[in-house]
């Protein structure tokens, strides 16, 4: 009995780490994709989660079935991401790193307050299908369904994206652009197209992540994008900012750190868990600024 209970506990923690890590990985991959091509950290990435969340709420209120919501929300987020790039970032294309970072902060403030004005500050409840709230029996143990679906869907998205990046012409162009944008332009890949696709993909992935974030929270509110983008930022720094595979690894490492700290740290220290994760980040920036999987860069 006791052994079975302990096994179930461990399985649940593993699935939690996998589910949380996969959500972070999806968000981090979006950040890393944009960073690798444009050299900018897009803090307004979190508001793409908000856009997708409110899209789900809007459809939900009009009786649109959940299956349609989960298709439309990522699409809307992708379109929002393209619009973001076109309106806010393209005019600043050759600006410095800090200028772009500040611009993305400005954009996130604009979007958050736009939602505040249109929808109000109150969290709005949104019900997701019961299948997500259930527990599922996996072998001898049961684990929460939403975490399992999160892990499954996110892993599937990562695989699809990987196939796109390694098999399609457009995907190869994007990977080349991530490696050396100028050289890629010289061989005839169109810069604006690559950038637009990068933003579209990052938006779609933020939208997919948003489905599970909403399923876990059960509500949407104007500030819901802040915590996810912070987590994604941490994950990309851990993995190495320019590296796509690094972002995925960083997402899972952060998920494991979070679940691990939560399980191991005594309850008096547990609230400081995020501070520990961030200290790890600053240590990485200090010792290995290119991240765990990133390439070393020439100074200055």
């Amino acid at each position, binding site marked *: 009995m006791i052994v079975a209970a302990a096994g179930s506990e461990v399985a649940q923690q593993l699935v939690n780490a996998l589910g949380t890590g996969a959500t972070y990985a999806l968000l981090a991959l979006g950040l890393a994709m944009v960073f690798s091509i444009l050299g900018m950290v897009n803090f307004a990435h979190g508001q793409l989660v908000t856009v997708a969340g409110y899209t789900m709420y809007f459809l939900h209120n009009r009786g649109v079935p959940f299956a349609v919501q989960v298709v439309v929300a990522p699409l809307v987020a992708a379109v929002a991401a393209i619009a973001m790039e076109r309106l806010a970032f393209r005019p600043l294309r050759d600006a410095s*790193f800090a200028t772009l970072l*500040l611009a993305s902060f400005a954009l996130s*403030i604009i979007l958050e*307050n736009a939602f505040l*004005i249109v929808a109000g500050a109150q969290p709005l409840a949104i019900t997701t299908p019961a299948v997500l709230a259930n527990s599922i029996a996996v072998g001898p143990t049961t684990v929460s369904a939403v975490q399992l679906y999160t892990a499954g869907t996110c892993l599937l998205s990562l695989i699809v994206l990987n196939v796109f990046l390694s098999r399609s012409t457009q995907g190869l162009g994007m990977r080349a652009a991530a490696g050396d944008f100028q050289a890629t332009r010289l061989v005839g890949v169109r810069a604006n197209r690559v950038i637009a696709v990068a933003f579209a993909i990052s938006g779609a992935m933020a939208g997919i992540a948003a489905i599970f974030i909403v399923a876990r929270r059960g509500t949407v509110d104007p500030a819901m994008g802040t915590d996810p983008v912070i987590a994604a930022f941490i994950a990309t720094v851990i993995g190495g900012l320019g590296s796509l595979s690094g972002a995925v690894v960083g997402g899972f490492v952060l998920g494991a750190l979070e679940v691990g700290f939560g399980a191991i740290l005594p309850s008096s220290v547990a*609230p400081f868990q995020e*501070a520990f994760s961030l200290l790890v980040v*600053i240590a990485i920036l*200090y010792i290995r600024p290119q991240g765990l999987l990133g390439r070393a860069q020439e100074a*200055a």
Partner: protein
Amino acid sequence: MKLVAQAARTAGLLVGAFALLALLLEGFGSATDLRVGIDFFLAVVLVVGLQIFSGNSGIVSFGHVAFMGIGAYVAALVSIPVSVKSLQLAGLPRFLYHAQLSLLPAVVVAALASALIALVIGAALTRMRADTMAMATIGLLLIFYTVVNNWTTVTNGSTGVFGVPSDVTLWTAVGFASLAVTLALVFRYARIGLVVRASREDDLAASALGADVHRLRLVAWTASGALVGVGGALWGHYYAAFGPTAFYFTEMFALLAMLVVGGITTVSGAVTGAAFVSLVTELLRRTEQGADLGPIHVKAPAGLSALLIGVLILLVLRWRPDGIVGGIELGDRWLRRARRRRAPAPPPASDAGLPADLVKQ
């Protein structure tokens, strides 16, 4: 010597403007105008403090609001009356629990605490490359927020602290704003300021010429953290009650907005930005509460001011990346005009990319 004259001229103009504004507020302003005025002078201390590091080194810090918070909490903890502390902070270490300082000593303690913490953190941060450091400062902001939110015995957690003596008057704020711009200008035109600014243009070249860029950046960072800490201490002693969310993304963005809108490279820019953003924010805030424009009653929704400040930032970054003031200190123009009258020959064109007054030397 010319640089000393320049610093004195700009400081004189700014302090004169502050005094004039304060006299006008005292003579003709309503209670609300007075509050907006004090807010502005406190913002000047904070933004000019941030300018000392970010303006001179060219490295944008997203984490300075943490020093504002440290200053505010430290100054509050050493001056909240014991009777009020017993209601909210009974678990405080004894020496803090019994401390009951008046405003000035509390500000000094807050400045020392901020400087010390800035020195320790800066020792690691200032060794990073500029972009990496900018990201690490975001980490600093987040760590500070997490710690303050959860360190309940000292900070009272997310509830925040109350009962801080509300003893900052208009003239206290004017005094500290004047002190802040003077210190920032002295720093800017002192040798260290010139070298840090040279490293902003090209840090490898500055190092190659023998400047210890890391150490000088650390000095700028520490001085900057201390002054922002002073700003935070005054802020806390003006608002009397506050919690961790006061020192998070919204405030960080407000300070950077002021600095960037005005012009990050000069003290005059920082002050102009603080004035401009304070004015716009206040006008919008009044419309959010409902205002009568002749026969029409307009009421803007909450959140509109923040949204428009965001739009303003994007427009400034796009169309006036050097800010409203455009990299000039007040009084700069007069200096140039006077020199042109004396020596009509145009300056050689080989000085591109260097700060104007470095070339003058």
